[in-house]
């Protein structure tokens, strides 16, 4: 079958458009405010984790980026195009956690079926081999294990060589080795310019593999930065050093210090700016055995998305 060429608006040609751009996006379901105003730009080639508790509005936001639902207000654009246009051009793929497969098709038929719906795709055999499912190409989907079905979903998503890949809890059910191999492949693609946005509950995973973490809670972005920045933002770091006769008042006076504690000859300082505290201790005192520890991202996550930020209309789906 032949394919027609539809020119993409000139705006996209510059390549300077963000991979994803959300401007003042809200989404209501009746009286429920699922998304309450998200502004977000994701640059091409970024690997971004979308992190948040259930009901934070992650899935609703991803659905709007995919053009599966329309925002109540605000603008969504993908690579400078409207979401449905980007999908029609084969620029966006998504991998959902479950479902999305016909049990009575074989693995190869599923990929062929999907491939024939796009304007152009990578060769079916190449994609099957790349996903490690060439050996089970003639097996019925119903007879594939959960892991094999997940690989098939990836094969389908990678068929059009998308510029933007959205993943919903991508490594659920994978073992440690599988997870590592998966992320290695994703990082490799990102280096070629593919943008990846993944929703996850594996907080460590977000910290380890994302360039950037966008923390969402109650329909808003509550934090946005690298894993280290998020952790620092939420709970700061703990500096511990052995100091003879510490000047607690001077320590407490350093900007960003939350708490100073003396235990025997050790001083323990909680601070947002650990560098300033360390610099003071090492230059102004006889401190030794200095240790700086970051709190885990788990704690950062809890303190940023917890119930501390009071919101009377906080009921979200």
């Amino acid at each position, binding site marked *: *079958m*032949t*394919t*027609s*060429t*539809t020119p*993409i608006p000139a705006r*996209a*040609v510059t*390549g300077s458009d963000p991979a994803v751009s959300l401007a003042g996006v809200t989404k209501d379901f009746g009286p429920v405010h699922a998304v309450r105003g998200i502004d977000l730009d994701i*640059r*091409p*080639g*970024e690997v971004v984790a979308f992190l948040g508790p259930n009901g934070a509005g992650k899935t609703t936001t991803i*659905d709007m980026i*995919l053009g*599966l*639902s329309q925002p109540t207000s605000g603008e969504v654009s993908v*690579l400078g195009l409207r979401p449905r246009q980007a*999908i*029609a*051009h*084969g*620029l*966006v*793929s*998504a991998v*959902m956690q*479950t*479902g*999305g*497969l*016909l*049990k*009575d*098709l074989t693995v190869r*038929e599923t990929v*062929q*079926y*999907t*491939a*024939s*719906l*796009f*304007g*152009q795709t990578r060769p079916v055999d190449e994609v099957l081999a790349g996903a490690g499912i060439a050996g089970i190409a003639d097996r019925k989907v119903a007879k594939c294990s959960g892991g094999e079905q997940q690989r098939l979903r990836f094969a*389908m998503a990678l068929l059009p*060589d998308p*510029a933007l890949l959205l993943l919903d809890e991508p490594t659920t059910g994978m073992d440690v080795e599988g997870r590592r191999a998966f992320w290695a492949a994703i990082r490799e693609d*990102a*280096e*070629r*310019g*593919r943008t990846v946005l993944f929703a996850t509950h594996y907080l460590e995973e977000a910290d380890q593999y994302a*360039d950037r973490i966008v923390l969402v809670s109650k329909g808003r972005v509550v934090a946005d930065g690298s894993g280290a920045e998020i952790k620092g933002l939420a709970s700061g770091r703990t500096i511990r050093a052995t100091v003879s006769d510490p000047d607690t008042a001077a320590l407490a006076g350093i900007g960003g210090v939350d708490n100073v504690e003396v235990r025997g000859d050790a001083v323990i300082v909680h601070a947002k700016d650990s560098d300033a505290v360390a610099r003071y201790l090492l230059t102004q005192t006889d401190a030794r055995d200095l240790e700086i520890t970051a709190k885990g991202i788990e704690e950062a996550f809890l303190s940023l998305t917890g119930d501390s930020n009071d919101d009377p209309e906080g009921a979200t789906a």
Partner: protein
Amino acid sequence: MTAQTIDTTTRRVPPLGGFSLTVLRIELRRMVRNRRTVFFTLVMPVLLYLIIGTNDTYGDDRAGSGNVSAYILISMAAYGAVLAATSGGAMVAAERALGWSRQLRLTPLSPVAYIATKSIVALAFGALSVVAVNVVGALNGKAQMPTHVWIAAALIAWAGSVVFGAFGLFMGYLLPSENVMQVLGPVLAGLAALGGLWFPIDADSTMGHISAVTPIYGLANLARWPLLGGAPHLAWILNLVVWLTVFVGGAAWRMSKDTARV
């Protein structure tokens, strides 16, 4: 962070909204592979014809330009076409339950191309069912009617089954089940009886008046019209058109709801 970007300027939108012969081929293969579908839409109408239609006590009685066997053959072909078209349309129920419909919405496939594909599959299977009953009927030799009646009746039974493709689609959106045909099979058997496919219904009786507003009535009478002769009644055509409108409207309504919710 990144030296390269993926070239987004050379991407093409597929023609015809993503309609593809590959998909059509795979969809047809799916239906033929489904033993339950094959039994109920291909084997059962043939068996019913052989059991009911070839009975020696009435089979050779005259019916229009042919015999009673021919009359029953046409009825069973119409029943097969109705079952096949409904099954084809109702496939959407399982696809929605499995999340396949959502998956398809992440591809360039347009809803119109999707419906076109499903309709062609439903009609192709309807054709297969009509051909099966007619070929077995011809080989069996009991049914007698002029050649043009064979052809006209088969074509009408097949074309009229499009109403039930829409019915299957509507029910497929209404009933989110993987086994929607287990519900629709008995419903269709009942509608076939009311529509006059199992036994003739006196048009002037109370039963006849009820029959005239049920969905299979129009198709049953139009399919037998080449055999029985005369002018087709306006009521038959009206019945077919009204039910087609109801089912297409219902399917379109459910489909738009579906899109809005996901």
